[in-house]
């Protein structure tokens, strides 16, 4: 670890501070072993929310074709099977309270879009055309199909190489925007939460965007639940659920996915304080470097703007500060500790 010389560009420092403070937060957690508990979301509910268990569930559906259709045959569940479980889950959320609202966002490879919103009148009033399929289903599947085709057209130019992740950062931002819109418009609004149904592996290149989304979710007190249907754990979502106070779960058996969804993720925020829910086993706090977008265990950090790099640079690419040479005996441990506490206070 190199200790970097501080530049005196204070203005810049303030500007980038907000954006990048999380890096330092993470950095502190990892390197100085500062452990701070997850932020509780339930502390104080804004007065403009329904008192009871009325929920707005934003479901982020992973529709990455490279995950569902590709060589990834290790997953035991097919996409149509997966959809069956999810639609049943959506129905059950709508069943629990007539004021409950469900919004589904498809997370594709190149794009993401809203594909279902239970609050719009068309999704409720239109009776099914063929009589075989319920209205919710047919409407959503139609939108989903359109979305997948559009998503595919976008990807024609550049064929995938390496990790094929879905655009989680985009759909998280869409979900948060929707929640903001709802909470700013009406007088009363349901308690929002986000549920990520993620299969594809994390894309390290989305690190900054995803972390920004996570921290803005934390600010607006929106818990992010994650249900992993893929093979690997997702470090992004582990952190997301940990930071926002949501539930992270990787069901060991996917054929009973509905039972997991209804038992764990259908729980409204009000009841969560009374129920035993899966606890995080371990959270992968590793960060991605800003220069090569790869996940790193150890790295260099700009002391001005807290950008993370995997190699030592002469100049910070984010804020432009010029770094000096490493000097291993500059800081004393006591000094570090004090700073840690201050930063935590400033952060919270």
């Amino acid at each position, binding site marked *: 670890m190199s200790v970097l010389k501080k530049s005196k560009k204070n203005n810049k420092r303030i500007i980038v501070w907000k954006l990048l403070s999380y890096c330092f937060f993470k950095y502190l957690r990892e390197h100085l072993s500062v452990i701070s508990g997850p932020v509780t979301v339930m502390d104080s509910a804004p007065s403009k929310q*329904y*008192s*009871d*268990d*009325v929920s707005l569930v934003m479901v982020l559906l992973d529709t990455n074709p490279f995950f569902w259709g590709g060589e990834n045959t290790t997953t035991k569940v097919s996409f149509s099977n997966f959809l069956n479980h999810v639609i*049943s889950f959506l*129905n*059950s959320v*709508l*069943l*629990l*309270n*007539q*004021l409950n609202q469900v919004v589904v966002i498809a997370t594709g490879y190149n794009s993401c879009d809203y594909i279902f919103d239970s609050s719009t009148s068309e999704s*409720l*009033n239109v*009776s099914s055309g063929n009589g075989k399929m*319920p*209205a*919710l*289903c047919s409407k959503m599947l139609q939108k989903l199909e359109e979305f997948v085709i559009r998503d595919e057209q976008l990807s024609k130019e550049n064929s995938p190489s390496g990790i094929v992740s879905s655009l989680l950062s985009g759909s998280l931002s869409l979900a948060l925007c929707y929640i903001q819109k709802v909470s700013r418009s009406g*007088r*009363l609004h349901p308690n929002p939460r986000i549920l990520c149904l993620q299969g594809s592996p994390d894309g390290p290149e989305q690190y900054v965007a995803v972390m920004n989304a996570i921290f803005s979710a934390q600010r607006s007190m929106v818990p992010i639940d994650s249900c992993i249907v893929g093979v690997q754990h997702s470090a992004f979502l582990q952190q997301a659920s940990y930071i926002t106070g949501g539930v992270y779960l990787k069901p060991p058996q996917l054929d009973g996915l*509905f*039972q997991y969804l*209804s*038992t764990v993720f*259908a*729980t*409204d925020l*009000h*009841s969560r*304080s*009374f*129920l*035993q829910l899966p606890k995080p086993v371990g959270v992968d706090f590793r960060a991605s470097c800003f220069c090569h977008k790869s996940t790193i265990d150890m790295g260099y950090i700009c002391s001005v703007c807290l950008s993370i790099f995997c190699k030592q640079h002469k100049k910070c690419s984010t804020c432009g500060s010029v770094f000096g040479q490493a000097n291993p005996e500059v800081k004393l441990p006591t000094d570090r500790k004090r700073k840690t506490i201050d930063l935590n206070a400033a952060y919270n």
Partner: protein
Amino acid sequence: MPQVKIIAKNFMDMVAALPALKLDKLYDNTFICEAVLRSLPPLAKKYVLQLLYIDEPVTAKSMEDWVLTDGVSKHRVAIDRLIQLRVFLEITDRKKETSYRLNPKFQGNLQHYIAHGGVLPRESMSSSITVRLPTAEELDSYALEQWESFLLQLISSSQPEKTTSFSSSMMKIFQQGLLSLRDKEAPKLTESGFQFLLMDTNAQLWYIIREYIINSEVRGVDSADLISFLLELSFHVTGQAYNASTLNEIQRSAINDLAELGLIKLQQGRKDNWFIPTKLATNLSVSLSDSSSRKQGFVVVETNFRLYAYSTSKLHCEILRLFARVEYQLPNLIVGAITKESLYTAFENGITSEQIISFLQQNAHPRVCDRAAPSVPENVTDQIRLWESDLNRVEVTPANFYDEFPSKDVFEGACDYARDNGGLLWEDSKRMRLVVKAEIHTLMRDYLHRQK
């Protein structure tokens, strides 16, 4: 202060009170299952969902493991409610272990819902047949108007403006308990009548609907049928037209009454009749705690005890008159003042200060609510409470008086005994006299007998 409370909890208490056979019959109807589920406490809903695809009974012990220690009381409430409504069936096996399973009918209906999604009770009519449907605003104002005119008629039967389809006997039933009806005397609102007026619309509606259902047996209508129709009605889409010919005999007679209350609007076309549910109807199965149906507030209270109510409603004016002096009325504004005299008449009529304050707070104008300050100024709320406590200076406690103790020791022993039991009100050690709360009189007597 007499504490007369009108119990207008909700539909489900009424459903829960039905005998098991009738209740099981009700669960044949998907909408009732749905409405019952939605009325449950959050934790209970969760349990139902969790057990929906489990056909085996689940032991009570393993269910207790689902909750944290904080939630034990909530857990009990949830389980009790589920058993009360026969959603959970209790099974006790040979080892005397209790286990629960879902009511099979209920389970089947909900499983169907989960797989197929919500369906509407009946198809709405296409817009080509119905002429012009009222807009959402028109429908809301219609519902409100109907409801208010019904309330006005209810509280001042002496000056009917509009005759309703309710027979006078039905009206009498509604008025029972709200008005004191004495011969040769103008009907006067009773205490519970005042309290009724200060409740919010949903609670009032419940009260009326409850009376309506209870008295349905007299009219030869099965209460279970009526309950299931009303619950079904709450699943219709507000503002859509539904053909009246799909209704059966009982339901057709009921919709006329419901139209009077503003629950539905009836319209007539060239060939068909149809009914349009309003917001009041679709909110029927909503539990009372939900404030979703709360109306926009209209009252501004100033620190100088003046009251401005932005309302055109006659009913609001009548309600304000219960506890405030109305000074003048403009087309859209009622100006009044809260005075000591006006409050005293309110207190005499059995309205409590808390009711008045909560009415003012609940109906506070949105501009006032948005401010950081309390919606009703603190000096006003304090003064209202003070004036009320002025009336209750003397507190009456039933008590017993003891004297002529044989010796000082016995007297002091008795004093200590009374004090230990928390019942000593007054003592006079010089003349050896003592006043003790009536509740512990028997204890005192036993004690004194033992002393002899």
